[in-house]
């Protein structure tokens, strides 16, 4: 279970969010500027909250009252950014293996095979990130995060930088990930269509506040999808 109860002053507005989610995929839904990315950065540990608590399955990651702030590298939380952020000086194999090496995990050929198959990236291993298409890069970023064996996977608009055709190409992988990867996810998007397909629980945000929480039925109808 992911429990978030935080406030953070962002200058223009403050994020004041509280929710607890059991879902396989918790969707953070809202227009751009709703504070979604700040919230995800707080969960990842990249942005310390001004006040509050963040905990996964009872394991406290942030608690300002007790002065607890676990740094990102010790959270075991995977993060797939909108821009894939692959390491340009490493080939795809080294990018994928990075998290395992940094966490000093034993090699796990079965997991490697499962993830590279799931994402269809086995054929890209010897290439450099500069040689990949946007969709391929995003699939590798997903694989890289998964192979670090996180206990939670954050996906911040992973389709945001892709055109429509690419989105259609990636979406099925995300659905398979949800159903087969066995890692709870937080999925950030401003697209209610994507949300409907992926999320099991939805946290709807506007200007830093939760305005609705529940199943996908809280989402606005597709026609009003981008209104947030």
């Amino acid at each position, binding site marked *: 279970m992911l429990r978030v109860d935080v406030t953070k002053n962002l200058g223009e507005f403050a994020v004041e969010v509280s929710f607890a989610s059991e879902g396989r995929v918790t969707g953070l839904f809202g227009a751009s500027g709703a504070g979604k990315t700040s919230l995800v950065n707080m969960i990842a540990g990249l942005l310390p909250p001004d006040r509050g608590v963040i905990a996964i399955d009872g394991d406290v990651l942030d608690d300002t009252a007790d002065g607890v702030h676990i*740094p990102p590298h010790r959270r075991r939380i995977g993060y797939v950014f909108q821009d894939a952020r692959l390491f*340009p000086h490493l080939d795809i194999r080294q990018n994928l293996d990075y998290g395992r090496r940094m966490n000093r995990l034993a090699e796990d050929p079965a997991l490697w095979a499962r993830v590279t198959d799931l994402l269809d990236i086995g054929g890209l291993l010897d290439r450099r990130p500069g040689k990949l298409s946007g969709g391929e890069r995003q699939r590798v970023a997903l694989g890289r995060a998964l192979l670090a064996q996180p206990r939670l996977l954050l996906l911040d608009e992973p389709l945001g930088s892709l055109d429509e055709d690419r989105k259609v190409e990636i979406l099925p992988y995300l659905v398979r990930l949800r159903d087969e990867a066995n890692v709870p996810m937080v999925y950030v998007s401003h697209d209610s269509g994507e949300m409907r397909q992926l999320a099991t629980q939805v946290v709807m945000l506007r200007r830093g506040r939760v305005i609705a929480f529940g199943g996908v039925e809280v989402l606005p109808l597709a026609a009003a999808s981008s209104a947030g």
Partner: protein
Amino acid sequence: MFDISPTEWTAILLSLRVAAVATLVATPLGIALAWLLARRDFWGKSVVDALVHLPLVLPPVVTGYLLLLTFGRRGLVGGFLADHFGIVFAFRWTGAALACGIMSFPLLVRPIRLSIEAVDRRLEQAAGTLGAPPWRVFLTITLPLALPGVLAGMVLGFAKAIGEFGATITFVSNIPGETQTISSAIYSLIQTPDGDTAALRLVVVSIVIAMAALVASEWFARRATKRLHGN
């Protein structure tokens, strides 16, 4: 004309050794300092920044004299090092290396700092979320991506160290075989009535070394850039 005499060889080899030692010792310090200046905010940062650049704007003879006062046999640091560790800088080739290292330090640090500043911090964040503690982020992401700048800084620093004159001659004098580098050898030769040919030989040698350094840095930078941009 191109018969390089043993004394000249001594000066050339000494220059190379002094510059190489100065660069190799200064590089780790330069990387650490460049990283601090590029990535950290701390009290007194602008003072540190100014101190690093000071040798660039101070008259070299002033730097040399300050070194003599500090690291000379009776200097505060020099006396301590000599008494406790047996390390002597004054009038030794090690002192020449120290002078060259300090004089070339600004030129070494600057390209490294710029290239560290140019490394995308979002990549460092991504490495953190993958479990890398800050020092491993530095070693596996920041440093490799800043490598062209590190090599450029090293070559620039080396070239500057080879040519350093003012601070070196002030601090460690001009002793053949111990502290007489190419520059101070040329200086001595052009003050001797029949030294012109020999001076000219050393001038050619220093031009060749400088050119080789520049070509090497260009080659390193091109290779590194190619490697980094994923092609």
